Each structure stands twice: as structure tokens, then as C-alpha cells.
């Protein structure tokens, strides 16, 4: 059987949620009193290829 320890850990723990995308879901979670944070997500800007390559190496 596969390793399910991490899932059992989730089952046993207080659920703490990072919401990415629709802010609405974050608000619904807060209504339930769930510990949650919201990420104001935006797609990354399209970069020139040489800059992508530099960033890949140094960030």
C-alpha cells in the first residue's frame, strides 16, 4: 500500500488553508472560522528568453 502518512497527518490536524485564485473561497473559509490566507495571484509576466535563463541560474 502507498505511503499515506501525510494524508493521515492532514486528517488529524487543524486544517490551515492557503487560498490562491478566487477571493470568494477565502471569504467562505473565514466564515467557517478556518485559519486561512489569501494569495492575490496574477500570472507571471512573459520574459525575454535570455532573462529567463539568467533567472533560472541565479534565483
Amino acid at each position, binding site marked *: *500500500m*502507498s*505511503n*499515506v*502518512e*501525510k*494524508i*493521515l*497527518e*492532514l*486528517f488529524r*490536524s*487543524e*486544517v*490551515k*488553508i*492557503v*487560498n*490562491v*485564485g*478566487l477571493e*470568494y*473561497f477565502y471569504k*467562505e*473559509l473565514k*466564515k*467557517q472560522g*478556518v*485559519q*486561512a*490566507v*489569501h*494569495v*492575490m*495571484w496574477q*500570472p*507571471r509576466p512573459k520574459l525575454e528568453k535570455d532573462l529567463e535563463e539568467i533567472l533560472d541560474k541565479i534565483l
Partner: protein
Amino acid sequence: MPTVRNVVKKNFFRDSVQLLHLSEEAKKLPGVIDAAVVMGTELNKELLEKQGLLTRKGREAGENDMIIAVKAEDSADIEGIISKIEEMLTAPTTVETYYYSIESAIEHLPGANLALVSVPGQYAKEVVKPFLERGIHVHLFSDHVPLEDEIELKRFAAERGLLVMGPEAGTSIINGVAVAFANVVNRGPIGIVAAAGTGLQEVSVLISRAGSGITHGIGVGGRDVKSAVGGIMTLLSMGAFEADPDTQVITIVSKPPSPDVQDKIINFIANEGKKKYVTCFIGGKDYEIPPVAKGRLVQTRTLHAAALEAVRMVSEDLYKEAVKKVFLPPEEVVKIAEAEASKLSEGQKYLRGLFTGGTLTYESLVIFQELLGDVWSNTPLNKDYQLPDPWKSKENSVVDLGEEEFTAGRAHPMIDPTIRVQRIVEEAKDPEVAVLMLDMVIGYGSHPDPAGAHLDAIRKAKEIAKEGGRHLVVLAHVLGTDEDPQNAAEQERKLREAGVIVLPTNALMALTAAMIVTGRTDEALVKSFYEKFLVGRR
């Protein structure tokens, strides 16, 4: 003998209220008898002196300097205490909970164990990966996630023993928390794995209404049970429930899986499973129950049956009670159908299902296939019955208003009732329509008062029919519990007051509708339907 130690931080300014708070926290550290963190003003130094907290070093501090003063047990590690206080001084804290990157968000929610991701599907991979890399489970609500991304993410997650619930997972319930669209249901011994969003909602709610409850509900996304994905998350979740001491019964809900995946699921139950299982492959063909699983595996065809059989595996008594009180015995259904059918006029012969839940639509189509034959839909079982224009019903029609053509650029109909409200009135104008069917999905994620939002339209629809000399039957099923923020009982009351007939399950709503439009209300038919669709096979 207690030790007193002062540390002076030169030119280190902090607000006095903040320092007061810090002092209180410092006093709670183990080994600390008394402590104060203050700016080195004359007044503060005097007060420290009185408290017996001032040393020569502290006396030399100026008013722009901060004094950390600690009185500790002789045995305590005073150096350690002071460095802890210094740490508290510069620790990042925040009251706001919005961030501009995943990294910042994770940093500010220590112990985060689940991510709810609803970004456009093409970005899902890049958003989900960082969570998995940090050992955080993911509920992926996004649609349009490329299949290869789903496979990659799920393999990556499974290797690490992590869940990727979704994509297109509308619902999960973890530890009582409703994630995305889900209801407040009882905790109990039944675990649910669902590749069908409103399927998970209906089964968890019906289990709860029957008096039992669930451990967790894991939505795995519709494609998980298809060959390409191979049931990665379904099988992982089953494994987790097998190992979870609180789960006694495992219920699997989905549209019919690909045959190879279905085999994997059944083999797992037979060979690796020790617990009791209920499968609900809605509209699927019966399969052979492996001899080793006999007695602990029941197969069902509807959500109604899945919930009942799961409860039955927990307690025969609860089951018997639920069949009578919650789920309506056949004779009750006959009574309702007869009464309504008798009010219809000549020419009223069709039903129109206006659904917000995808699985509820599908379940209705499966039931109508049996009772009425093919019906029109924007998501038909038989491709020949694809509605040419999803905005216009014809003959018997069942429409899933949660499909893309109705949701592009607007909220889901579970949140925004506008489209259905208009459609109800439209349907009422058609003199051939006898029955309207409405699902009212409540719980977290849904509209704060769906019944209320539909009342005007329902009344108007009935009015229009009446003016045409007809009686319009409106059936509804409220998917939710009395503990949901919208309160199921309250929602049902509002609907009944508007002349709506409320059915306790989606399957019973479909059965009732079919009986009314066909006029076939004999008990024999109902009983055979019950046997086929509302109980399981062992």
C-alpha cells in the same frame, strides 16, 4: 538566588504599546520570574529599579536605547531567554492575510496543510507545484487543466503521499471544513472518495440526514477514474481511509470509471481492503463482486442508494429509521405523484429539469433513461439528444446550468441564480410543460438564500400556467443540512409556501417527475424502481 540581567540595545526604537505586549510575552517564558522590555527613559529606569530589574548596565541606557531586563531562576538559561526575547522583537508578524506570492503566504501561515487553488487551468501546474514541494496537499478547483498537467501533478504528489484533489473538484470536506462548495455535515465513521462534486455533497448530506456522518470527503476530480490518469488519487485516498482509524466504511462515488480503473478499484477493495465499501458508479453496469469481498462490498447506482447503504453498514437500526422517515417509502411517492398528475391538463406532457449540480443532472439523466428513454440535454447520455440550443428546452429536457455555456464570464448558478430565474419563467410559458425540477444546493460556497432568490420566479411561473388554464408542478430538492448557513429546513419551508413539492433526494425527485409526466403511478412500478435504483446489490 534569582539572577537579574539587563541587555541594552542602542538606538533601538519600539512603540510602548508593542513593548508592553512583548514584556507580557517575555514573562511567560520558562524560568522567567519577572521581565520588562522598555525604552531607557528616566521614568522607565525608575520603575525597573522598583521592580528590582535594573542593573548597572541598564542604568547607563539613554532614552533612545532599549532595555531588555530579565529576572530568572538561578538554574534558568538566562542567555537563552534573552536571545528568545530578541527574536520576538524582530519576528515578522502580521494582521492582514492577503499576500502577493505563494511563498509569502506559506511563510505567514505556519503549519499550512492544504491549498485551495482556483487559478485559470493553464497556470494550475505552476501554482500547485510549489505547494506539493513543501508537503502541502492541494484542492484544485480550476477547470481546463491540461490532462498531461493533471497526470504530472498527481504522480508527483502520489510519490510524496500528498493529495491533489481535482482538477474540477467542486467539493471536499476535510476534518469538518467545507472546502469550496460543501455542506456542514455530521462527523461519523464513513469516508467518501468522489470523482463527482455534487455527488460528494449529496451523499455526505444524505448520510448526515440519516443520522450518521463522515470522517472526510475527498473530491478527486472527474478525470481521475479515466484510464489516462488511472485512478491515482482515488486509490491513494482509499489507502488513506483504510489506514485511518476513524473510518469504518468507505464510499466511492463517480460516473462510470474506465473499465481498467474500475478493475483497479475493485481489486484494491478485494485484495488490499479490509474495511467495508460502497461503490456508486452512477449509471454504470453491475459488476461481479469478488468472492473475498462478499459481505463487505455493496454496489449502488444512485447517490440516494449509496448514502443509505453506507449508513446501513454502520447501523441497521439507523438505516431502517432513515428509510421510513427521511427517504420516503414508495407509497408516499405514489401519493404525491397521483395528486399532482391529476391536476394536469391535456397536452401537458413534458418535464424540464433546471440543474446547478453536474452530478445531479447526470443522475437524473440516468434515471430518466430507465423510466422515459432518451431525454434532451446539454450533457445528454445519448449524443443524438444534444439540445441544439442549450438556452431552449424541447420535449423532455434536463439542463446543467453549471456548464460552460452558462458560466463563461459569470458566477456559477449555485452562487448567481439570475439565469435559472429567467429560465423558470420561460419554461412556464410552454403549454406542453407539466413539471419543473430544481436542485437547491446550499452550504458553504453557495448563494446565501437560493430558495428565497427563486421564489418570485416560481410564483410567476405558476401564475403564467394558471392564466393559461394549466397547473404547473414544481419539484425541488434542497441539497443541504439544517446546520448549513442557509438552513435546509428553512429553505424547504420557503419553497413549500410557494407551492413547491420538496423531495428529500435527487433520485426521488427524478422518479416523482417521471411518474407525473407518464401518469404511471402504480405501486408495482415504484417498487421495482426502488429495488433497482434505491438499494444496493451485495
